[in-house]
Structures are given as C-alpha cells and as structure tokens.
C-alpha cells in the first residue's frame, strides 16, 4: 500500500508529534548527556531531529531490558501466582533509522516465527507500535547498512511511515494503514510538490549510493571445519574484554535469561537481557563452561549472526548499524573478522598480530 506523499515543516512535524503524543506513548530520539537515546518523551520539544543514529537500538521497545513474566506470593508453604501488571501501550516509535527498522525482521523471526510460536509480549508490543523511520541526512563513518540491502527497501519493508528531511521541510510517506491513519490531522500537512518529491528522491539516492558497504558482509558459506580454528578467533579473543557493549547495543541480538527474585514473601519471575560475550553466559551448574575462553565467545557471536543464524531464519543477524564497530572498547570489528575468514578460505590466514586488515 503506498499513499501519496505529504509535507510539513519542522513546526508542523513537532505539532504532529504533540498531536500523536496525546493519543499514544511517544518514543523518540532525545539528548541525554552527550548522546542521543531513544526514550519516552513527554514534550515534542525534547525530540532531536539532527543526529546520526541513536546510541540505543529500538529493540528495547519490543524486547525490554527486563520484563516481569509473573509475580508470586509465598504464604507459609503455599505459593500463589499473579499475572504481570501492565499491558503494552499504543506507541509511536519515531526517529529510528532504516537499518534499525530492518532489525525488526530479525527479532520478529526469533520471537514471532521460530518454532511457529509467538512471544506474547513481544508480539503485542509490535502490534501496538507504529514505526516512523527518519531518513538519514548523512552517512556515518561506521555505517555498513549498504552491504545488507537497500536502506530504502529496509524502510519500505519494515516501517509504517518514512519521514524524509528536505532541509526546510519533511516528507511523509506511509506504507501501511496503521501509518497512514496516524499521519493526521490533515491541516498539518500539504501534498508534496513535484519539486519536493524530487528532492525527497534525491535524499534517498544520496544515502542509497553512499551507504557504507563491504564485500565481506555476506553469510559465511565455508564449512565449520574450515573456519572453526581460524587464528582470528584467538587473536580477537585475546583482545576482547568480554563486556556486553556489542551485544547490548546490537538491534538484532535476542539473548535473554529468566530469573526469580523474592525479597520477603512477594517475588517475581522476570526475563532480562543476557549476552553471549559474558563468561557466565554458558557456565553449567557443575562449573563446566562449554565456551571456556573469550575466543569461543567471539566466534559464537560472529557465526551466530553470519552462519548458524541465517541457516535458521534465512536472515543475517546484522543490519550494519555500526554501533558495535564504533563502540567496542577494544576496537574489534566483525567486518575485519569476516574479511579474514573469507581470505582464509582462499589463502592461509596471516599469523596473529601481524599486519592490520583494512576495513573498507
């Protein structure tokens, strides 16, 4: 479904946000300290329109850092269970980028499709949320989205609304009923002129061709045996600090843990993020750890996104948003790793610590 393009200026855009915020929870880019974060905003003035990419990814909106599954009360030896308190609110998620929109395909696959089961709370949050992508003004040094498909396709395929900055104004294109119904009231918008439509396509084109690309960002087809003991794992494992930056900022990571807490006699069972990069992630009760070193954890992350994951869902577990590239404390680049793997397939791998692989 493709409705006609509407246009409004920044004032109009903010008024629109105010109007929507009256009816829905509004989550949008907001400045905090020196960074821009997706957060629930109370006033439209807080919303930031000029930024690269939000530091946190939209996955938080659908897959919260932690959420209660149920709570329980202990009474002597008896236990009574109570359902979770809150139901997801109708939400407008404004200002995510095309790459982040694409990531929802991956989380959908994991939470809503795998095994033919739906994760109830994830699904209902998806249903209750309208996605408004804000088209990029510029390409950031770490952007790799171009390698994973056309940004425009990502937006068209996964967002309800695409908002394109045209300098003095913003073009609104709704791709879904949900989206279209939200682009109102009409008095805020006017139909796009030819010239405006042209500028919009220009903006598309600019990003489309300059979006970061790298040939290595394709599924790893090589045999497990061929890549399992590649020296790159040991090399990166030595450098990796075992923190959760890459996985927690990644819009496409879906690992979680389930725990109980019970202060006093009122307890709860909840689901919370976890990271395959943490040492304790795979530790057994016995103390045995099937992923004994950081090398094996780095390997897990990369191959889950580029080999085992795709085998399962048909989708690469990466959208090229570049957060992990920009923020890894040890400068570990999955692009470099993939490149080395693929080189190795043709030539034997360079010994560890020698020569820096260039990342295009």
């Amino acid at each position, binding site marked *: 479904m493709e409705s006609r393009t509407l246009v409004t200026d920044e004032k109009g855009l903010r008024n629109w946000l105010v109007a929507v915020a009256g009816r829905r929870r509004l989550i949008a880019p907001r400045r905090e300290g020196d960074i821009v974060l997706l957060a629930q905003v109370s006033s439209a003035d807080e919303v930031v329109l000029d930024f690269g990419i939000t530091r946190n990814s939209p996955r938080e909106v659908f897959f919260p850092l932690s959420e209660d599954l149920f709570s329980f009360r*202990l*009474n*002597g*030896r008896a236990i009574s269970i109570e359902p979770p308190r809150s139901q997801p609110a109708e939400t407008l998620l404004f200002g995510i980028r095309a790459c982040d929109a694409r990531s929802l395909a991956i989380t959908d696959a994991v939470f809503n499709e795998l095994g033919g089961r739906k994760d109830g709370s994830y699904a209902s949050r998806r249903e209750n949320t309208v996605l408004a992508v804000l088209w990029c003004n510029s390409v950031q040094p770490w952007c790799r989205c171009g390698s994973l498909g056309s940004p425009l396709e990502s937006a068209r395929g996964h967002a309800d609304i695409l908002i394109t900055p045209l300098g003095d104004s913003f073009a609104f294109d709704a791709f879904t009923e949900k989206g279209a119904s939200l682009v109102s009231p009409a008095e805020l918008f006017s139909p796009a002129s030819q010239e405006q439509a042209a500028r919009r396509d220009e903006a598309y084109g600019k990003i489309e061709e300059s979006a970061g690309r790298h040939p290595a960002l394709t599924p790893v087809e090589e045999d497990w045996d061929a890549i399992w003991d590649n020296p790159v794992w040991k090399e990166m494992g030595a450098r990796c600090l075992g923190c959760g930056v890459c996985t927690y900022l990644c819009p496409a990571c879906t690992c979680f843990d389930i725990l109980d807490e*019970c*202060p*006093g*006699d*009122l307890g709860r069972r909840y689901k919370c993020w976890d990271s395959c990069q943490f040492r304790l992630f795979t530790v057994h009760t016995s*103390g*045995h750890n099937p992923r004994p070193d950081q090398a094996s954890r780095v390997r897990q992350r990369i191959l889950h996104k580029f080999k085992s994951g795709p085998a399962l869902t048909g989708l690469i577990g990466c959208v090229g948003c570049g957060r992990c590239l920009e923020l890894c404390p040890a400068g570990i680049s999955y692009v470099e790793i993939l490149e080395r793997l693929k080189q190795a397939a043709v030539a034997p791998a360079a010994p560890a610590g020698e020569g820096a692989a260039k990342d295009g």
Partner: protein
Amino acid sequence: MPRIGVFVCHCGTNIAKTVDVEQVTNAAARLPNVVYATHYLYMCSEPGQNLIKEAVKEHSLDRVVVAACSPSLHERTFQNCARTAGLNPYLTEMANIREQCSWVHTDRQQATAKAMKLVRMAAARAYYDQELYQTEIPVNRRALVIGGGVAGIQAALDIAQTGYEVVLLERTPSIGGRMAQFDKTFPTLDCAACILTPKMVEAAAEHNIKLYTYSEVESVSGYVGNFEVVMRKRARSVRMDKCNGCGVCWQKCPSKKIPSEFDAAIGMRTAIYVPFPQAVPNIPVIDRENCRYFKTGKCRVCERQCSAEAIDFEQQDEIVKEQFGAIVVATGIDVLDHSVYGEYGYGKYPDVVSSLQLERLINAGGPTQGILKRPSDAKEPESVVFIQCVGSRDESKGFPYCSKVCCMYTAKHSILLKEKHPETQIYIFYIDVRAAGKGYEEFVRRAQEDFGVKYLRGRVSRVFPRGGKMVVMGVDSLLGEQVEVEADLVVLASAVQARSDARELARILNITTDKHNFFTEAHPKLRPVETLTAGVFLAGACQSPRDIPDSVASGSAAAAKVAAMFSKPHLLSEPMIAQVEPMTCVDCLTCQSVCPYSAIEEVAFKDPLTRQEKMVAKVNEGLCNGCGTCVAACNSSSIQLRGFTDEQVFREIESALAS
C-alpha cells in the same frame, strides 16, 4: 525447603504487655516456609522448652525461631533445647522482642508491628542457617614460660606440679629476676632471698621443668595448642655438664671492673661471672664483650684455673625449636632511667641513687655487705632524703600511671635504715601515700609513728650539692612553704616501666601492648591473664606495675588457665569462623592484611575444573576468632563467616525493609 517453627514468648507480661503475641504468632504462621507457630508464657521454662521439642518432632521442624528476650541471655538455652530435640544447635535463631522491643516501646500497635518485623527477619535468616560443628584441635601439653622472675617461677612450678612439662626461659644467666635483687620485702620485712631462693632451687629440681637460662625467644609460629617456638640459647662459654660452680674462675678473672647489672651498676663484676651467689644455675657465663680473651685473643686464665675443664671458648649459640601448647609471658619490668630528671642530678652526683641501688647498698649480699655507705666517699649517711613519684604520675615525662610499689618500698627502706641506725634523719617527699593492701597502711604508719620518718608532702624542684652534702629543695604543700633539706644521700623512687623491648616480643607473640608498652589482657576485669591471642597468657609486672604478692598470684592464675587448657582431651574451635572459597579466591591476601589474629595463610589449591594449581588464602581454624573483618574486606566475596554469611545478612536487610 527448610521447615521453620516460630515460638513466641510472653515472658509473663514483660513482652505480652506491649506486644500482641497472638498477632505476632499469626503473622509468623504466614511467613515463607514457616510450618508451625505458637506462643507460650515462658519459652525458657521447662514446659516451654518441652513445647519446642515436641513441635520439632511433631512437625519435623529443621529450623527453630524463638521470639523472646535477647540472644545474649537465652541463645545457649534454646540451642541446647534444639540439640536435645535432635537438631544442630546452630539451626536456631532468636528475635529479640523484649530488650529491643517490648521494654523500649509503649505504643502497643507499633511494638507489635516491630515484633512482627523482627520475627520476619529472624525467619528469613533462619532459612539460611547451616549446621555448624566445632572442630577438635589437638593440644601439645607443654608450656613455655618466658621470664624467670618470681611470677614466671610460680607459674612454671604450678604448671609442672599439675603434671605438665614446662620450659622456663630466662634471658639472664640466672633465674630470680627483680626479687632476687631485693633485701627485704614489705610489709613483713622477711628477707627476699630467704623466700625466693628455695623457690628457685625447687624450680631447678622439679623434673617437669626445663631451665633455659641465658636464652631468648627468636620466633613463634602456630596457634593455641600448637605453637612452634624457636629459641636461642646463648653461648655461656662454660660447659654446664662439667662446671661444678667452684668459683675459682671468677675469683681469678683479671677483668674485674665491669659494672654489675645485678648490683644496679654500683657494684662491679668480672668478665666470667655468676650474677649473684645464690644464682640458679650456679654456673658462670663469659661476658664476651668484656672478656680479655675475646677482645685481645690473649688471657685464658679461667681456662687454666678450671679443674673441671668446663671453659669452652668455641661454644656457639644453640638454636632450638620446640612445640608448646601454651605460652606464659612473665618478662617483668625495667626501672626508669632518671637522667630524664636532670634537676635531680642522677648520674651527675654520685650520692643521688635509685631505690634499686639502695636495695643493693643495704643488702648483705651487696657490694657493701649491707653496710650503707654513700657512693661518693663511703661515709655512712646521717641524713637521707627519699623522693617518691620520680617518673610515676608525671604526664610531663610520659608516665601518667602510678608505679604502685614505690610508696611501700620507700617506707620499707626508711624502716630498714632506722632499724640499723635509729639516729639517721629520714625525710620522704611524697605526693600521696598509696598503701592499699594487706597490712600496708599499718606498715607506713609504723614508719611515721614508731620510727619517726618525716613525710613531706610536695614535689622536689631541685637537688644540688653544697659543702659535701646534697641539698634538696621542694615545697611542703601542706604548710605551703619552700623547704630545703640537707642530706648525705638522696634516693629516687623511680617509676616502673615496661621492658624496652616489650613491643618486639609482642610482635613475635602477636599480642598487643598499651601505649606504655605493657602487655594488654583480653579483658581488664574478666579475662585478666589471657591475651587476645588464644593460648598466650600474662603473669607479673609485664602487664602493669605489680608487687610480689600480685605477681605471684597472677603467676598462679596463668598457670591455672594453662592447666585447665591442658586437662582437656582437645580444644574445640569456635564454629562461627571464616571460610575461604578457593574457587573464586584470587589470592590478593587483603584478608591477611586485615586479620587481627594472623589467621590467614596462603596455600596451594588445585582447581578441579581447570586442573591447574593456584595459590589461595586459607583460614587457620585454630587462630580465627570469627570477627568477619576479612569477609567485609574481600571484594569477590570469596570468604564467608559461618553463622553470619552474606546470604543471611542480605535476607535480614531485605526482610527488614520489604513491605
């Protein structure tokens, strides 16, 4: 899942008056894992305890929470109750709803609410109680007594006579200590030697006592029941197995002008010497600093003279390492060096002497055969001035404490002088006369009334010579006027002081000293002879200034403690002690640096998972007292304190605040 029983006590009306025990019980019954809750008039009473025992059986409880008085009052009671009910005693908890609730609050509702909270906390804690056991520590039934003064001798004899082996270690060539230097003893005036010498001989003869004289402690390791002590037996240069103490050697020794320590430096001794005629053992030592042979390589007179061929110049110090179960410290005291009192001219004017020197001057065994002659011209003094509190009770010189014995021995000296020469004029400058003790006050009165000794209350400002006499200037604070007294001899009642090397010994033994370097007892009133280091006891004046009766008493007291300890088949360790989790320990040994008991040692540990060996901290159960300081210092929570685990405290915090 534990099965908790809660037992709420009315304590008559003590609790029930302000706390609604009914409500507390009902609330308790609904707490997690509580399977039974009840209340009773007096839980500590026989029927109360039976009620608990029956409930434990009937409801197969494995945790008992008693809401009653303070644990310091009845924790033991209910632990024993649990034990007889077949539970490990450490699976009981108490909620203090009397001392810290019903007795301090009046609003019934608030008090009841708080009581419920306290019960909730106790139950939450009880959930994580673990069975605890005391571990048995073997005891090595040998005692080491450090210091051969009267206190040490007494301690050694008492221990030996209860049938245990003792090593009596003395730094000087002979046992006897300070008392051996004295002439007579107050208040009975019986001669010190006459009562001490038999004890010394007895100690030497006692088959359970090994005498190590001329010896010192080098190092101590281990813990209560199992100390390992390294001792240095200094070379006497005289073979004890051969010497018969005939004395020819020291009569013939050419270097005769060595100030005698025993005579407080007013008499002289030879280089090879026994400190005093009644010395035990009566075997000389060669003082190598002063021996002509050791200094010049020539002489060997003694060797030539010794028919027993006992002289051995090649003899080396002997290092011995022995095991002991207990250590008694009886190292005694030093006497203040008066040079800090320049104004009294000690050391400057020969006729200003210390009371210890006077002891030697009037002692029949002393350098003057007991005839009092003043040092400058050997003239027998017609007038003597005593100055008390020289050092004692004098903040300005850093001795705020009272030396306890000076008032009495000064009175003793004055009487002894008067007995021999009634015409001698005697003045005593004092601040207060402290004569607390059996027959002490009477003794001082005798000096004043029967012997006409003149007591002048006031401090002496200056002592200086004038025309062959010493002039003592001071204030008589009773008359409030300057007084000036001429005397042939001035005697300073010098402050009693901790041994100069007391701190060093304290370090070796891991015991503590006060700011005047006297060793500190575990508790000034209730544990007067124990130290904070289990198995180390104190006797005599090394702990605080003491006279002979007190020293002997404390010697016996320490001996009693040792004997009591040795009479047990084994020692039981405190069950609530720290325990290291070697898997997570990173061996930073922060625990070691904070432990007050040096109870943390480093040991090797083989990780069962990685099969790699690493070093980790380990708690010595014999040394740990369970303070938990190490636990709080361990960032990786690799140490837990049994009975006070993180989990237990955590649950208490949580339930104290959970709504």
